[in-house]
């Protein structure tokens, strides 16, 4: 009998402890608590759990959950937490953005380089076209040079023939002189 009585009191104490430590942000409890808060605040310190109130409404017995008063800086802490979460998530996404920016800069530099190469190519093309036209205008002169070369060769052949003939003449003259 004594053991069961002790067990019952132990069960009661155990069942009362979670209710005492519960700090669920219950709005209804808070609303009711605010009205009855000043009375409790005057009685107990702010961190102490408030005693649950029971209401009997039309024969139905209801109970409010015992809540602890919120810490005064909980809003600030929540704001701080969400801000830091936002900064962290932004950092995660910024890595990909930076990769895209790097590729964009590399593409821009490459396009600038290609534009310079395009200008150089246009200049080269124009210069080569002018050169081709000038060499085309030089063609008659080159033909003349070919003709000059042929004439010079003919002149050289004529000079050799003349030289050979003059040597023959000299030899014949010497022969005649000896007689």
């Amino acid at each position: 009998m004594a053991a069961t009585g002790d067990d019952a009191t132990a069960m009661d104490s155990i069942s009362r402890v979670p209710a005492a430590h519960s700090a669920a942000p219950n709005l209804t409890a808070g609303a009711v608590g605010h009205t009855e808060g000043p009375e409790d605040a005057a009685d107990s310190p702010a961190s102490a759990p408030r005693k649950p109130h029971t209401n009997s409404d039309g024969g139905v017995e209801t109970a409010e959950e015992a809540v602890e008063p919120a810490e005064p800086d909980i809003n600030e802490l929540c704001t701080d937490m969400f801000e830091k979460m936002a900064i962290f998530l932004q950092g995660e996404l910024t890595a990909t953005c930076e990769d895209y920016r790097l590729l964009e800069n590399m593409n821009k530099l490459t396009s600038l380089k290609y534009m310079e190469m395009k200008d150089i190519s246009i200049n080269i093309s124009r210069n080569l076209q002018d050169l081709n036209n000038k060499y085309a205008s030089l063609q008659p002169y080159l033909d003349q040079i070919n003709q000059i070369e042929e004439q010079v060769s003919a002149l050289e052949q004529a000079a050799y023939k003349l030289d050979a003939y003059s040597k023959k003449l000299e030899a014949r003259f010497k022969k005649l002189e000896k007689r």
Partner: protein
Amino acid sequence: MSSAESQPRFGQSVKGLLSDKVGSCSGDVIALTRQVLKGSRSQELLGQAARNMVIQEDAILHSEDSLRKMSIITTHLQYQQEAIQKNVEHSKNLQDQLRHLL
């Protein structure tokens, strides 16, 4: 399941449960973000694109170098063409002289 988890467990306060829940939600959001980024494979693709561009840069520089050399060679050709033009104008007199000789 959520209602069972939201009930205060034996020896655990609602405050502790709430902080655990907030922590797990934050972890879930972070994991979701990482999964989305990993699933998009943007890191791999962009890294591969950057690597390919670095490989191409050598070829681009070589091409630019070749083009500059070609422009210098073209300029030299122009100088040579001007010199030929000057000297070729004398060939007419030479031809007349040779015609007289022959």
